């Protein structure tokens, strides 16, 4: 817990001891590296302790430690501040003055959500062509090498892989961005272009995403040596065109 409110800390510490929760309370920022070493389940932070540096700090902690439940417990704040914090990855925002029991319940709820998310980690990787999609890592790999996808690129890839039909641009936008696509918006095209470039770099000789002009995109791994008309005069050679398949490899390596 990062806080300087002596009265609140005193009351909360008593309840934490009653529950038998291991805890550390500091009056200043703790680097994400140090937080990793502390092997925490949750972090409760009063952002006033950090001043204007709180935003990059929250972003850095939430990005580096996606499994950590982060709860902001601070004095009155604006809607914009709360929205900003939650969008950076904060799990919950509690406004002081608050009852310590309420704060601890919010921490418990955040931990429950994180545990449920951890269960999803067991989702097995998907193999398509030369690419292995590791859902739990939010990343695609060719062999051991990461394709280097951003979060949004990965989400688009995952969506396309999970569908066995042509997905309309509007549909992709709605599912990934969560809003209706404005007429003329080229976001989907731009992200698919970046995704293709990265896949092409990591897995040359394979085409994964196919454009259906005026409609949208379809995922299907096609090896360029598969002898498709006009593509290669070479005889068929393995690996052949394969639809994505699920490979059960147990828990992730990392």
């Amino acid at each position: 817990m990062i806080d300087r409110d002596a009265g609140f800390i005193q009351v909360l510490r008593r309840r934490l001891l009653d529950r038998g929760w291991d805890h550390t309370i500091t009056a200043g920022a703790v680097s994400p590296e140090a937080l990793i070493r502390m092997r925490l389940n949750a972090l409760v932070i009063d952002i006033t302790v950090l001043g204007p540096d709180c935003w990059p700090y929250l972003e850095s902690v939430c990005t580096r430690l996606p499994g950590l439940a982060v709860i902001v417990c601070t004095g009155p704040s604006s809607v914009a501040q709360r929205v900003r914090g939650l969008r950076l990855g904060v799990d919950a925002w509690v406004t002081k003055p608050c009852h310590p029991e309420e704060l601890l319940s919010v921490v418990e709820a955040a931990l429950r959500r994180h545990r449920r998310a951890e269960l999803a980690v067991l989702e097995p990787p998907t193999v398509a062509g030369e690419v292995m999609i590791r859902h739990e890592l939010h990343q695609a790999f060719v062999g051991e090498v990461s394709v280097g996808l951003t979060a949004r690129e990965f989400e688009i890839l995952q969506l396309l892989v999970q569908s066995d039909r042509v997905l309309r641009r509007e549909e992709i936008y709605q599912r990934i961005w969560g809003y209706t696509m404005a007429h003329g918006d080229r976001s989907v095209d731009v992200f698919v272009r970046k995704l293709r470039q990265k896949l092409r770099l990591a897995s040359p000789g394979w085409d994964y995403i196919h454009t259906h002009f005026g409609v949208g995109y379809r995922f299907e791994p096609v090896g360029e040596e598969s002898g498709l008309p006009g593509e290669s005069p070479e005889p068929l050679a393995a690996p052949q065109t394969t639809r994505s398949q699920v490979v059960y490899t147990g828990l992730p390596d990392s």
Partner: protein
Amino acid sequence: MGLAEMLAPSGREYFALFEQAGTNVMRAADLLEQMLASYPDRRELATDILVCEHEGDRITHELINHLNNTFVTPIDREDIYRLAGALDNIVDYIEEVADYMGLYRVEAPMAQAQQMSKILRRSCEQIADSLPLLRGFQDISRHTIEINRLENEGDRLTREAMAALFDNGIDPMVVIRWKDLYERLEGAIDATEDVANIMENIVIKNR
């Protein structure tokens, strides 16, 4: 500058500066079209556009300095001042669009914005082609007619683009960003029409 030069109505410097401004406007519009067509891959073109904006300011200052140092001008002082300002406005709008694309963290372009930048580039081409004709106050009507036509097309596109932003369920951030960018693009296209009107006026007055 000698007395004879201050009094003689030689317009070479003014016309040369206007032609430079026309080339600069054309270059800025061309860069913006390229930037939007390939966005976000060639975001660095915004820096080249900024260079054009500085160049536009330099030319305008030079024109005004020149105006302050000469008694007799080849065309009305007011027209020189207005034309210099209108040409500068085009580049200012173009620079704002390029700059705000980055400032608003735009991830991808809109097809309508790409079309508007194409119209803007074509209109700037007409300006660059017609400015040399000012030297002899030659007929520029085919250029001004084309600029007016392009401006009408730009207006239609802007209205359609704006209307599309207000469909149900669109991300409000997209609306805020693009409404502003469309307005600036429209401002740039409107500024080309201002230039055409001023040029037309100069030709009519001096023929």
